[in-house]
C-alpha cells in the first residue's frame, strides 16, 4: 500500500508541475494552451533519448526543459496574432501533430512500439521502495522551488503586468506597454515546466509510447487548474492533488458498482471526472483556493 501511495504521489507531483505551468499561462496571463501534453511529451522524449545516449539525468532534465520552452517559442508568437478560441485550436492541433510525429518517426522514437529501457531515477537504489521515495522527495523539492518562484513572480512587477494583460490587453497597450514580449516569455516558461514534468515522468515510468500523450492529459491538467482555482498557485497545488485523489479513488468505485467491467469502468471514471468538473464550475466557479470578488 505504501508503494502504491508513493507512486500516486509521484504522479500527483508531476501533474502539479504541469498545472503550475498552465496556471502561469492561463490563470495569470490568459493564454489558452490546449496543447500542454505536447510540451510534456517533448520533455519526456528529449530527456529519455539523451539518457539512452548516455547523458546524465540532471543535464538531460535541463535540456528537456529548454527544448520544450524553445519549441513553444513559435507557438507563443502565434498567440500574438490569434484570439483565444483560435489559439486553443492551434495548440490542440499542435499537440496532436507532436503525438503523430512521435508515432511516425520510428528511427528516433521507436514509434508505436514505444521507447523501453529509459534509465530510472535513483536506479542504483533498485526499483520501487527507497528509490521511489527518493524520486518523491526530489519532486517535492522541485515543486517547492517552483511554487516559491511562482509566488515571487506573481507578486513582482513582472507578475503584476502579466495579470494586467490577462485582465485587459487593450488597456495595457494604451499605457504604452507592449504585451507581446511577455506573452511569448510566459508561454515558453509554462512549456518549460511541462517539459521538466515530462522528464520526471520518463525517468519514473521508464517506458514511453505515443498513446501516453493523448489530449486527455491536457484535459486533466485543465481540470486540476479549474478545480483548484485559476490564477492561484496554491490552487494549482490543491487542484492537482485533488485530481489524483479523484482519479485514483474512482478506481475503487468498481467495487461498489456491480456488473461493470474494467474497460467500462475507465469510461465511467472519465464521466465522473467530467461530472465533478461540471459541479465545480456550477457551485464553486472560483475553485477550491479562489475567493469570490
Amino acid at each position, binding site marked *: 500500500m505504501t508503494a502504491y501511495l508513493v507512486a500516486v504521489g509521484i504522479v500527483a507531483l508531476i501533474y502539479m508541475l504541469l498545472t503550475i505551468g498552465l496556471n502561469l499561462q492561463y490563470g495569470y496571463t490568459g493564454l489558452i494552451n490546449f496543447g500542454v501534453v505536447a510540451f510534456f511529451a517533448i520533455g519526456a522524449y528529449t530527456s529519455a533519448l539523451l539518457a539512452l545516449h548516455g547523458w546524465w539525468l540532471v543535464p538531460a532534465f535541463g535540456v528537456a526543459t529548454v527544448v520544450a520552452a524553445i519549441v513553444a517559442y513559435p507557438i507563443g508568437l502565434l498567440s500574438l496574432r490569434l484570439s483565444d478560441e483560435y489559439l486553443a485550436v492551434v495548440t490542440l492541433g499542435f499537440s496532436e501533430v507532436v503525438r503523430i510525429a512521435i508515432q511516425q518517426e520510428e528511427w528516433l522514437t521507436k514509434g508505436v512500439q514505444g521507447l523501453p529501457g529509459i534509465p530510472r531515477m535513483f536506479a542504483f537504489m533498485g526499483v520501487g521502495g527507497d528509490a521511489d521515495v527518493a524520486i518523491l522527495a526530489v519532486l517535492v523539492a522541485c515543486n517547492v522551488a517552483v511554487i516559491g518562484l511562482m509566488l515571487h513572480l506573481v507578486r513582482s512587477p513582472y507578475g503584476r503586468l502579466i495579470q494586467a494583460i490577462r485582465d485587459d490587453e*487593450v488597456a495595457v497597450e494604451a499605457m504604452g506597454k507592449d504585451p507581446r514580449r511577455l506573452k511569448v516569455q510566459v508561454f515558453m516558461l509554462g512549456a518549460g515546466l511541462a517539459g521538466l514534468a515530462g522528464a520526471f515522468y520518463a525517468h519514473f515510468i521508464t517506458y514511453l509510447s505515443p498513446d501516453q500523450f493523448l489530449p486527455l492529459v491536457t484535459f486533466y491538467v485543465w481540470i486540476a487548474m479549474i478545480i483548484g482555482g485559476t490564477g492561484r498557485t496554491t490552487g494549482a497545488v490543491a487542484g492537482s492533488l485533488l485530481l489524483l485523489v479523484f482519479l485514483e479513488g474512482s478506481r475503487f468505485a468498481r467495487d461498489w458498482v456491480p456488473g461493470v467491467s474494467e474497460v467500462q469502468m475507465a469510461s465511467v471514471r472519465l464521466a465522473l471526472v467530467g461530472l465533478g468538473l461540471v459541479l465545480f464550475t456550477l457551485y464553486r466557479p472560483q475553485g477550491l483556493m479562489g475567493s469570490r470578488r
Partner: protein
Amino acid sequence: MSAPGRVRASRNHAGVLLAASGVNKHFGGFKVLDDVSFEVGAGRLVGIVGTNGAGKSTLFAVVSGRLDSDAGSVTFAGDDITRLDPVRRARLGLGRTFQVPREFAHLTVRENFLVAAHCEYGETLRSVFGGWRRVDREQRALRERADGWIEFLGLMHVAGEPAGSLSGGQKKLLELGRMLMTEPRCILLDEPFAGVNPVLVEQISQCIRDLNATRGIAFVVIEHHLTALKALVQHLYVMDRGRVIADGDPASVLAQPRVLEAYMGGVI
C-alpha cells in the same frame, strides 16, 4: 486639491500638439469617419460632442492607434504618428481612457496605478530571478508617486480594493489616474461623466481643470453631458454622421441652428 509633482514652468498654447487631418474610416460599406480634421493645442481643453454613432469613439480609436484610418493623417507634437501602433503613441505621451472602463479588475487600485508606471527593470523577466534590491528601490519610488495620484483623485480609501469592485465613477477616476502615471502630454477622455453621479462629475471636472492648469496636460473630452462639458472645455467640435459639422467656443457652437438640428433634433 492640487496635482502632485512639479508644476510646468511654461505652457505653450499656440503650438498644435495633436492634429488629425482628412481622416476617413469605413466599416464595410459604412463610412464612419468622413474627412475629419481637428486640432488640439498644447495645454488646451477640447470637447467633442455628437449623437450616438456620429463617429466620436471611432475617431479616438484612430487617433490612439487602435484602428487604422483608410485615409488621412494624425500628428502628435509635430511628428506623423499615422502608422504608429497604440503602444508607441502612448509612449510619446498620448494617453486615452475608454467609454466602458477597462480596469484591471483582479488587481487592486494601487496595483492598477503601478502597472501603468514606466518600470524600467521590474517588468523584465530577469528581475524575477535577481536584482531584487533594484526592484524594491524602483517600486518604492513608484508607490510613492502612485499614492500621490490616488490621494489627488480621492481614491485612497479604496486603494487596496480590487478595481473590479469600484463604482462606475471611481473606475473613471482610476482610468484617469492610470494615465497620469504614464506622464502624458495629452489625454483623450471618452465619456468621463457617463453613468457618474453629479458630485463625482464635479470632482472629475475639477481634477481635469487642475491637471490642465498645473501640469499643462491637454485634454480631448468626448461627452454627452453638455452642461459639464461647456463649463470645462475651451473649444468644442460637433460631429454628425462621421463629419465635423461645427467647431469653436462651446457656447456659440452649441447655439448654431445646424448643431441644434443635428445634435438635439431642433427641440431646443
